[in-house]
C-alpha cells in the first residue's frame, strides 16, 4: 500500500454517489462489464474519460472478432493455430472459454440489431465489427440495462478501505470543472492499455491510467514485456489498418523493394528500413475485387488517401510505424481467477487493462483476439464484481481513503510539467532501436532515465486542477514504460513480440510469465505457466 491514507472528504463542488459496481472505462470491455454486472442485479455506474461510444481503440476502427462456430474441429484448429505465434504462453482452458463467451455475446449483438453482413450463401458473418456501429449499440444497451454513465469523467484514483479492499474511485468531470466520487463495493478497471499518445487510431485516451491506479492499490501486472507492437499507417495519418497492408509492396526512396518487408511476418524489416530513411507503400497486390471489399469494409482506411488525392493502389505514399504499446500488446493487470479478479480484493480487470497472456500468450497479431477478450473478460469481470458486491452486503459505512499518489499529493515541491514528461517517456518508448529491437544495455540506459523521471515526478507537488488529468496520464505512461522495460530485461530471450538483439532465440527456460509491480521500486518475478502440459506436447 502506497496510498495517501487521507480520509475521504468531498471536494467542494463535487458529485458523490454510491454503487454496487463501478466500471472505469466505456469501451467494449467496460460496456460488457457494466451490462453483465447490471444483469446480475448490481447497481452500476460507468465512468469514461471521454464519451462512452466513441472512446477507445475499437470505436474509431473496425476489428476482427475471434468468432468460431462451436464445431470441435474448428475450435481446436483456432486454438492450435495461435500457440506458436504467442510463444506457447496461452492457457487452453482460457482460450476455450473465451471462444464460448465470444460466440454467445456476438450472437446477442445480432439479436440487439447489429447489422452483421450476410454472405452469398445466406450465412450471417460474425467475425468482424465496425467500431462506430458496435460502440454506438453498446452505449444504447448499457443505458438500457440501467447503468448510469458518466461521460468525460476520467478516474484519477481508487478508494480503498482499512483492509486494503477497493471501495470506489474518484475523478474529474472535465466538462463541468468539478469532481466525482463514487463509493462502490467492487470496481472493474476497463480503461484500456497504453499507447503513449502515439496517435495510433483512437488510442490517445489510452495512457495506462488503470495500471497506475491498480498498482497504487497494490495490484500486480504481468506480461508487460509484450508491449512493443507497431502498426503501419500513412506517415502523415492516424489510420492504422495493418490487415490491408498485406497487399502492399514496400519500397525505399529510390523505388527499390525493401527486402523481407511485409505487413505480416516482415514488419521488423520495415522498422529497420525506417531507421535508415523513408519507406513507401503501394497496395499494388490488391485486385479489383479486393479493392472493392476494402472500401466496403473499412471506409475510414481511405479517408487519409481520398482527402489528399492519393490512390493507395497505384500511388506510392510514405508510411510509418506507430507504437500501439499494450493496446495490442498482451501485458496488463494480473488476473487471478475465472472472474477476472486482480490481486487486490474488490478490484477486477477487463479488456486491454487486463493481461491477455491467457488467450494470446506473447503476441496478439490483430484485433480479433483482443476483441474476443474484451467481450469475454468484460462479461466475467462484471458478473464477478456483482457477485462480490452482493456478498459484501452493506459496506457503505467502512472507512475509505484515497489511494492516489503521484501528482495528487500536497508536497513542498513544484508540480511537474505533464507535456514535458509525456514527451520524455515517448523518447524512450517510440524509438525502434529501444523498444522494437531490445538489448540489455539500451534497456538499462532507458530505465536509468525513466527511474530518474519517476523520482522527480513522485516527489513533485499536486498538479493544478487544469493539469491534473494530463499529469496523471503522463505518470501512468511513465510507470507503464518502467514495468515494460524491467520485464523486458528479465526475459533474456526472444518470444512472441518481445525481441532481444542479444538473445535472438526462444529459450525453453523462459516459458513462464513475468509478473511486475511497484512504483518507487519496480520489481519483476517469474511465474509458472499454469498450463504447461499442453505446451510441452505442442513442441
Amino acid at each position: 500500500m502506497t496510498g495517501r491514507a487521507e480520509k475521504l472528504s468531498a471536494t467542494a463542488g463535487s458529485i458523490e454517489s454510491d454503487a454496487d459496481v463501478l466500471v472505469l472505462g466505456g469501451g467494449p470491455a467496460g460496456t460488457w462489464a457494466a451490462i453483465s454486472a447490471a444483469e446480475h442485479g448490481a447497481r452500476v455506474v460507468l465512468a469514461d474519460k471521454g464519451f462512452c461510444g466513441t472512446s477507445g481503440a475499437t470505436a474509431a476502427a473496425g476489428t476482427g472478432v475471434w468468432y468460431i462456430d462451436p464445431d470441435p474441429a474448428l475450435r481446436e484448429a483456432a486454438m492450435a493455430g495461435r500457440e506458436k505465434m504467442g510463444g506457447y504462453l496461452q492457457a487452453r482452458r482460457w482460450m476455450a472459454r473465451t471462444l464460448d463467451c465470444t460466440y454467445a455475446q456476438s450472437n446477442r449483438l445480432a439479436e440487439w440489431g447489429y447489422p452483421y453482413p450476410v454472405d452469398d450463401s445466406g450465412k450471417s458473418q460474425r467475425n468482424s465489427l465496425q467500431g462506430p456501429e458496435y460502440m454506438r449499440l453498446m452505449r444504447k444497451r448499457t443505458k438500457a440495462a440501467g447503468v448510469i454513465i458518466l461521460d468525460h469523467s476520467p478516474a484519477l484514483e481508487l478508494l480503498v478501505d482499512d483492509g486494503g479492499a477497493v471501495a470506489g474511485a474518484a475523478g474529474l468531470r472535465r466538462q463541468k470543472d468539478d469532481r466525482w466520487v463514487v463509493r462502490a463495493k467492487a470496481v472493474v478497471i476497463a480503461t484500456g492499455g497504453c499507447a503513449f499518445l502515439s496517435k495510433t487510431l483512437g488510442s490517445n485516451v489510452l495512457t495506462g491510467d488503470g495500471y497506475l491506479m491498480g498498482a497504487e492499490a497494490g495490484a500486480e501486472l504481468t506480461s508487460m514485456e509484450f508491449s512493443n507492437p507497431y502498426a503501419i499507417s500513412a506517415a502523415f495519418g492516424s489510420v492504422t489498418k495493418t490487415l490491408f497492408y498485406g497487399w502492399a509492396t514496400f519500397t525505399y526512396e529510390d523505388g527499390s523493394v525493401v527486402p523481407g518487408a511485409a505487413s505480416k511476418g516482415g514488419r521488423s524489416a520495415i522498422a529497420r528500413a525506417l531507421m535508415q530513411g523513408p519507406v513507401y507503400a503501394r497496395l499494388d497486390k490488391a485486385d479489383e475485387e479486393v479493392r472493392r471489399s476494402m472500401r466496403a469494409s473499412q471506409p475510414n482506411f481511405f479517408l487519409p488517401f481520398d482527402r489528399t488525392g492519393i490512390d493507395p493502389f497505384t500511388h506510392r505514399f510514405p508510411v510509418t510505424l506507430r507504437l500501439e504499446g499494450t493496446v495490442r500488446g498482451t501485458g496488463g493487470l494480473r488476473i487471478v481467477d475465472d472472474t477476472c479478479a486482480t490481486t487486490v480484493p474488490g478490484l477486477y480487470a477487463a479488456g486491454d487493462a487486463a493481461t491477455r497472456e491467457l488467450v494470446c500468450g506473447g503476441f496478439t497479431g490483430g484485433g480479433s483476439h483482443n476483441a474476443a477478450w474484451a467481450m469475454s473478460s468484460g462479461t466475467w469481470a462484471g458478473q464477478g464484481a456483482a457477485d462480490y458486491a452482493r456478498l459484501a452486503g452493506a459496506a457503505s459505512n467502512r472507512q475509505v481513503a484515497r489511494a492516489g499518489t503521484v501528482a495528487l499529493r500536497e508536497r513542498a515541491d513544484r508540480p511537474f510539467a505533464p507535456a514535458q514528461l509525456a514527451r520524455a517517456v515517448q523518447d524512450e518508448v517510440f524509438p525502434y532501436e529501444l523498444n522494437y529491437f531490445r538489448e540489455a544495455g539500451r534497456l538499462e540506459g532507458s530505465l536509468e532515465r525513466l527511474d530518474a523521471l519517476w523520482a522527480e515526478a513522485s516527489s513533485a507537488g499536486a498538479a493544478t486542477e487544469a493539469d491534473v488529468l494530463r499529469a496523471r496520464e503522463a505518470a501512468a505512461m511513465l510507470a507503464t514504460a518502467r514495468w515494460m522495460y524491467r520485464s523486458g530485461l528479465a526475459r533474456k530471450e526472444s518470444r512472441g513480440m518481445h525481441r532481444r538483439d542479444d538473445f535472438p532465440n526462444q529459450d525453453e527456460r523462459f516459458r513462464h510469465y513475468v509478473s511486475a509491480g511497484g512504483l518507487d521500486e519496480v520489481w519483476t518475478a517469474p511465474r509458472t505457466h499454469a498450463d504447461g502440459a499442453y505446451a510441452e506436447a505442442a513442441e
Partner: protein
Amino acid sequence: MIEVIDAERCTSCDICVNVCPTNVFDKTDGIPIIARQADCQTCFLCELYCPEDALFVSPFADASQSVDVVALKQGALLGSYRRAVGWTDDTRELRGVDRSYLLFGH
C-alpha cells in the same frame, strides 16, 4: 486533425462537444469552438456524429493544415465519411456491407 466547424451548417446542437473522446471542443453561446486542436487524435468520429455535416477532419494527424471550405463543399467532402458508413438516411444499406470476412487470413 479537426480543422472546420462550418458556421453555415452548424446548428449549435453541441453533439460534437459531447461525443469527442478527447474533449477538443467547447460550447459557447453560439456555435462550438475548436478549443484544444492539439488534443485531436484524428479519429474522425465527430464528423460521423454531426447530423449537419458541418465538420471536417483533415487527415494530417500531426500538423494543422489550411483548408478551403468552399472546395470541400464543392467536392462533397463534408459528410463523406458519414455517407460511406451508412449513417445518413439515404445510405443506410451500407451499414451491413462489411466484407472483412473475405479479406481475413490473407
